[in-house]
């Protein structure tokens, strides 16, 4: 088990480097960080010249990559051009917790919802429940995330109002001004109001797909010989389903969930944009828009690492659920 994990981690390092390299090349094509700097009166020309050298802009691109990579590894992430006066590190560590909050909520919510629903759909194949769940999942898979976000806003922020005339749910942002210093519970309740819509919007797509896949994995398992064996042993139907079928259907769904992780990160970016949430996704998009190369690069790298870590976590869970992996 330990050697297996070590091997997997070692395999992931080149993936992270490769992904960063691709991102670096594409972003280098896009943005000239110095264009923005020259326009920025707060940055002195001498600094720009110094930075040009420091970031390797006097070098060919592949060498520049290694120079950049080296300085990132040692923790020198450069200044944020988007938020002058702040370092990229500060900007990112302000955005990262928010994104992690949104994504982990969406992740837990989606898993808790889609796995049972998919299993029910399979167990009641061709019933009304199954058809409704199928329709629901197609609805989720076919709905463009950003548009669904806009629809939610129209319903919950424009049409539905509280008696006081305030929208039922805030159409964007992350916190009511003035709540920063409130006590923990009210602050969380306030945060919750802002997160409900983004989390639902972001979940819909995952849930739609996962329900559908969980259903088909479960159906596949339900036709396996070992379920017939389990029934021939005289086990109760409960045991047959929950112990023997469900556990096996979880194995492929774990892989699927891991594979959909980059999609969730992408989805989070556009959801944050729609709901004006100051998270990483929004940060990447605006950094790209504003030629903030250092911030965009770091944010992309961190997102990639997030994806890679999620894949690793899936591997671990996988090896726990499937004994065939542990020993191979």
């Amino acid at each position: 088990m330990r050697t297996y994990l070590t091997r997997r981690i070692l395999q992931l390092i080149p993936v992270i480097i490769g992904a960063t390299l691709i991102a670096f090349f594409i972003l280098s094509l896009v943005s000239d960080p110095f264009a923005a700097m020259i326009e920025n009166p707060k940055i002195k020309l001498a600094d720009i010249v110094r930075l040009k050298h420091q970031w390797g802009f006097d070098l060919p691109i592949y060498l520049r990559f290694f120079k950049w990579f080296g300085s990132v590894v040692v923790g020198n992430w450069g200044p944020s051009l988007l938020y002058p006066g702040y370092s990229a590190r500060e900007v990112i560590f302000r955005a990262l917790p928010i994104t992690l909050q949104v994504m982990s909520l969406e992740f837990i919510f989606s898993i808790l919802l889609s796995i049972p629903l998919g299993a029910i759909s399979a167990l009641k194949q061709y019933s009304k429940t199954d058809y409704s769940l199928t329709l629901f999942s197609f609805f989720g898979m076919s709905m463009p995330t950003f548009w669904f976000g806009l629809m939610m806003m129209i319903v919950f922020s424009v049409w539905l109002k509280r008696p006081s005339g305030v929208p039922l749910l805030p159409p964007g942002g992350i916190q009511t001004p003035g709540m920063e210093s409130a006590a923990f519970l009210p602050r969380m309740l306030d945060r919750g109001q802002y997160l409900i819509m983004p989390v639902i919007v972001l979940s819909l797509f995952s849930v739609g797909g996962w329900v559908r896949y969980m259903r088909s994995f479960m159906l596949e398992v339900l036709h396996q010989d070992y379920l017939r064996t389990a029934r021939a042993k005289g086990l109760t139907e409960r045991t047959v389903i929950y112990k023997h079928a469900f556990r096996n259907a979880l194995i492929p769904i774990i892989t699927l969930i891991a594979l959909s992780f980059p999609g969730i990160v992408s989805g989070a970016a556009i959801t944050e944009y729609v709901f004006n949430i100051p998270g990483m996704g929004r940060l990447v998009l605006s950094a790209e828009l504003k030629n903030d190369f250092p911030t965009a690069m770091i944010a992309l790298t961190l997102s990639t690492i997030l994806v890679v870590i999620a894949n690793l976590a899936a591997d671990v869970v996988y090896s726990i659920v499937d004994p065939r992996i542990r020993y191979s």
Partner: protein
Amino acid sequence: MANELTLEEKSKGRESYSYWGLVFKRLRKHSMAMIGFFLLLIIIAVVILGPLIWRVSPTQQPEGMEDILLSPCAAHPFGTDEYGRDILARFLYGGRVSIFIGFMAAISSVFFGTVIGLITGFFGGKIDTVLMRLVDIMLSIPTFPLLIALASVLGKGVWQIILVIFVFGWMGDARLVRSVVLSLKEEEFSEAAKAIGVSPLRIMFVHYLPNVMAPIIVSTTLGIGGAIVYEASISFLGFGVQAPLPSWGNMLQHAQDYIFTHQALVWYPGIAIFLTVLSFNFMGDGLRDAMDPRLYR
């Protein structure tokens, strides 16, 4: 998933007709696939024939302010947008653009992915290692931010958007095709073909390609829907198709500013995207069921 059926038909020749006949028969019984098919037929008919009937320019901006953001009326059944352009005309033309982008992006991704999958699966070795690593890497980058970046480099034309979606779209198909080829390599006929000296290219295209047809068809169908959503998302952020040329995506670009006042701007293109993608998803699911080799025991 090795498509035993198609495989058998290959050797029997004549029966391959009955395989597709059977697929067709099952598809006709698949109510979701049929709903998807007819829905799509209607949508395509509307976007192709619509502009021929509704002969209003989708790009013309009237002088002055009085035609801006009109509610639906006789002259503009869907109203006008923030530049006073006719939304119905933009809607009809935009559908052409969006669906065209979806088709082209999905087909090119699948085509390239299939070629890569065939090559890596067939030759193995170094080519396989390198290309599959590339696939791993590209699959672990959150593509959307990079898609945006690439779109902003390449520019805002229809072909550029197709290229952008293609660049980040082929990896899944490559993996899929490779895995099918790997499982086919185990089969006897591969050994036999190699033993009697059939050329690699021939084995690849004559023996393997037909066997990956079923998953490829499903993947293309689902991919078109996915590409339409990608186009919409890119255009929504303002990196997609350059106005005044309309697409369903860029019609939504400023929609967020109007959700409080002019919701029609949000409704029409969004519903059209949703229904189009839904119909592709329905058809993809039906095709997958109809071509599932396990159903023909």
